[in-house]
Structures are given as structure tokens and as C-alpha cells.
């Protein structure tokens, strides 16, 4: 199965589950092709482990084309590896050189506990979105899609924020393990569009409150998140969210929107 001629040394974090302590284990990755993706390289190592009856290295992955946001890995000091604007599944081995030592760690954050080896639990992100990352419309609206024109610049800006894939690289890169880039991307997307206006100020309060409850750190505007974001989400989202948050808290009447449960 080996098709290439690169030989690498991997130092991989292995941890059985959330309750046990982990440690680095060294593996040889041999016969690696530069055309392989990083995850395909790990596939090769795992096939070797399975052949020996050992447990393969566990990591999250799914689409392998850089859009689902499931893959992670902190590779040689970089979330998603050393190249900009790509996810780990889009990282190819030609980025590395023969004989290189590659250190692979899981995302490290209190809010992202390790599940096994390199996979972490990012459900905190879901809970933040559940707290307010939506427009409250039921299925079956009858307003024609073109009834509300949206200036192209606004639509494009909102789109830029909406491209977040929820991978958590921003948290992994931030020295404070802050989730501000992730949260602000959704707050900004919906806060810029006319559809998001009615809940703009309750949304930001609800999402920030949930973010704080999850135990993420505080933003100190270092910009590491922006630098490592595979979708190049900008820090201006954070400032926009701050602005909305302070407006909401200090000057607006509405508090966090209490939803009727329908019961």
C-alpha cells in the first residue's frame, strides 16, 4: 500500500478516554507519498497498527474536503498544520520533508475535553449555537425571497462570516482558548442581515452568556485565531460582536429573549 518514499517520525498524543491520563507515543510513518493528505498518512499508520492487532490512532474526520469542520489536530504548533487557510484534511504531505519529526496533539481547551487520542468533544460549540444562533422563523414563511433587497456588500460580508465550519481551530490557536471568533462569526452574520435584526440584541447576549458558561477564555485580540482560521474569518467579527453586546447591555431595553416553549 505504501506508494511513496518519505519516512517520518510521529509523536502522537494517545489517551484512552476522558478519564485517563494521556501520553505521547512515537510512531514511524514509512513509505509516505507527498501526494497523500495528512489524514491519509495517518490512515497508513493506522492500517499498520491494525495489522499488528493494535488500536488505531483515533481522530475526528469526515468529509475530507475541508468543509465539514470535523477534522482537527494541532500539528507542530499549528491547528490544522503549518499552511494557512486549509483544514488538516487538505494538508498534503508535500508540505513536510523526508525525515521530519511531526508532533500531533489534540485541541487543548477546558471546554473541549479529549474523547480519545486526538478527538475532542466540541459540543460546547453546538450549545452556544443553540442559545441563539438562529432566526426565529418557522417553516412555511410566505414572504418572497426577493421582497427584502440586501445590498451586495452586506450580503457578501455576512457570507464571509457564515463560512465558519465550527472546527475549533480558533480556540486551539488562541493562547487563552477563547471562542470569540467562532461566536462572533454567527452573531455578525445574522446581525448584519435584515432577517437577523429583530433578535439581534437578545441573540448576542444569549450566545455570549453560553460562551462564558462553557469555560472558554477571554479574547485579548492577539489575532492568532484569524491567522489559523481555515476559512479566514476576520477578527472584525469580534469587534462587531463586542459593539452589539455593549449596545445591548448598556443601552437597549431587551434582555436575553425568553422563548415560549409552546407547552
Amino acid at each position, binding site marked *: 500500500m505504501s506508494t511513496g518514499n518519505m519516512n517520518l517520525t510521529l509523536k502522537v498524543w494517545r489517551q484512552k478516554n476522558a478519564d485517563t491520563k494521556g501520553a505521547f507515543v512515537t510512531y514511524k510513518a514509512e513509505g509516505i507519498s507527498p501526494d497523500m493528505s495528512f489524514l491519509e498518512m495517518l490512515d497508513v499508520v493506522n492500517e499498520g497498527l491494525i495489522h499488528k492487532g493494535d488500536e488505531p490512532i483515533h481522530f475526528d474526520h469526515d468529509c475530507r474536503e475541508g468543509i465539514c469542520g470535523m477534522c482537527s489536530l*494541532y500539528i507542530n504548533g499549528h491547528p490544522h498544520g503549518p499552511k494557512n487557510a486549509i483544514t488538516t484534511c487538505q494538508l498534503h504531505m508535500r508540505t513536510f520533508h523526508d525525515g521530519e519529526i511531526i508532533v500531533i496533539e489534540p485541541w*487543548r481547551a477546558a471546554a473541549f475535553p479529549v474523547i480519545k487520542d486526538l478527538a475532542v468533544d466540541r459540543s460546547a460549540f453546538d450549545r452556544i449555537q443553540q442559545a441563539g444562533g438562529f432566526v426565529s422563523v418557522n417553516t412555511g414563511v410566505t414572504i418572497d425571497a426577493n421582497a427584502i433587497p440586501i445590498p451586495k456588500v452586506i450580503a457578501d460580508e455576512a457570507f464571509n462570516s457564515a463560512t465558519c465550519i465550527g472546527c475549533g481551530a480558533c480556540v486551539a490557536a488562541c493562547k*487563552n482558548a477563547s471562542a470569540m471568533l467562532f461566536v462572533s462569526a454567527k452573531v455578525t452574520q445574522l446581525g448584519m442581515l435584515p432577517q437577523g435584526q429583530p433578535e439581534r440584541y437578545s441573540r448576542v447576549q444569549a450566545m455570549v452568556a453560553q*460562551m462564558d458558561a462553557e469555560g*472558554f477564555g477571554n479574547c485579548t485580540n492577539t489575532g492568532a485565531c484569524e*491567522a489559523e482560521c481555515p476559512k479566514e474569518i476576520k477578527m472584525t467579527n469580534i469587534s462587531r460582536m463586542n459593539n452589539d453586546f455593549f449596545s445591548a447591555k448598556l443601552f437597549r431595553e431587551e434582555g436575553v429573549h425568553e422563548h415560549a416553549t409552546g407547552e
Partner: protein
Amino acid sequence: MSEFKQTFNSSLGKKLIMALTGLFLCTFLIVHLGGNLLLFSNDDGFGFNVYANFLTHFPPIEVIAYLLYLSILVHALYALILTIKNRKARPVRYAEVNKSTATWSSKNMGLLGSILFLFLVIHMGDFWFNYKFSDKLGFKEYKTDLATGETKSGIYQASPGFEKSVSVENNVEIVRVKDLHARVASSFSNLIYVIFYVIAMFAVSFHLLHGFQSAFRTLGWVHRKYTPIVSAIGTWLFAVIIPLGFAAMPVVYYIQSLK
């Protein structure tokens, strides 16, 4: 009130406090530097001493001064709280050091701030505390001939409780005031002290290189047109001109003391 409490207990609220106190301290730096430039006027400390007296005795400025001290304490305290929380947010550190692109200053605000806090304690203990609460400082008498405008200075032996007097006798204005200038000159003749000052000014530079524009980001004041201006002010005024100006004082005085 509880809503405000909630606001300032939130992560963003704490950052708001950091930003507001930080920016307030920034504006003070401009005033402070402006006043201290009097150290460079060759009048045996006349202007500087009068200015020091004004700052410590004009009530509105006194109020602002205490706000300032409070800001420093709050800024430092919140920095501490935030740092502890940030550490908790990543209980297991990375083995491989983070190589993400971020400026050195932005990643070391805590270190820089700690240096600055230490500096402020020494700086204020040396000048402000001694000026206000001790009798270690002498007084000086400046006699200005109002006809010629010529000023002569000399030591004045003040009785306890004396602060300042201005009188005119025979067309000569006599100003008697505490001599902070002498204290400054003596401190700045100590090489170790000067080196410490210069290091502290480097810390100011790097702290504000990140801090000034970061405060604007935290406040949410970003704009395609204005953010570059903020950035330029933060870099050139706060990270270059102001620290250079402050650092020049001990260096110049030290060089003069060698003569």
C-alpha cells in the same frame, strides 16, 4: 443594578473595563509627557516645580489623579483576574509551542504590564509619595526681576507645613516652592535607575503597541476607514513618540550629571 453586575462579570464586560481604564491611562500619558517636557527647559526646575505644585494642589486635577490611581489598580486587578481565568481555560498545555502568527507584544501583555506595575510602584514611591507625604524634599526660591525677566534661584528653608508662596517685592516676583526637580536630577544621576527607566519605557512601548488598538477592538470601534488611523496613532504616538519622550528624560539628565 444586578444587570450591570452581570454585564461587568461577563467576559466581555471585564474586557470593557480593561479597555476603558487602559485608554484613560493612555490619555494621561499625553498630559504627563507634556508637563514633563518642562524638565528640558533650562530654568533650574522653576517651571517644572511650579507645574508639580499645580498638579498636586488644583482640586479638579486632584480628583482626576485619584481616578487615575484607581484606574491603574483596576486595570491591574482585572488583568490578574482575566489571566487566571484564561489559564483555567487551557488546563493542559501544548507540548509544542504555539507558532500561530500573533505579535510578540499581544502575547506578552501580562509580562509587560507586570514590569509597568513594578515601575509605577517605584516611580510613584520615589516622586509622588515623597512629594506629598514626606519631608525629604527641600524647597526652592525663584526670584524673577519683572523688569528684566531674569530669574535667580536659591535654596529656601521652609518652616513645617509650608507648601508654596508667591509674592512681589520691589518689582521682583518671589516664588517659593517644593523642589521636586532636585529629586528628579538626583534620581536620574543613578545609572541603574536610568537603565530601569529605559527598560520600563520599552515595556510602555510594547504594551501600548498592542494595547491601544486592542482597546478599540474590544470596544467594538472598528471601521474600514478609521481603524487604520487608530492603528497609526497607537503605533507612532503611543509606541514610539511617548516612550521615546519619557526615556529621553533620564538619559539626558544622566548625561548632564556626568559633566
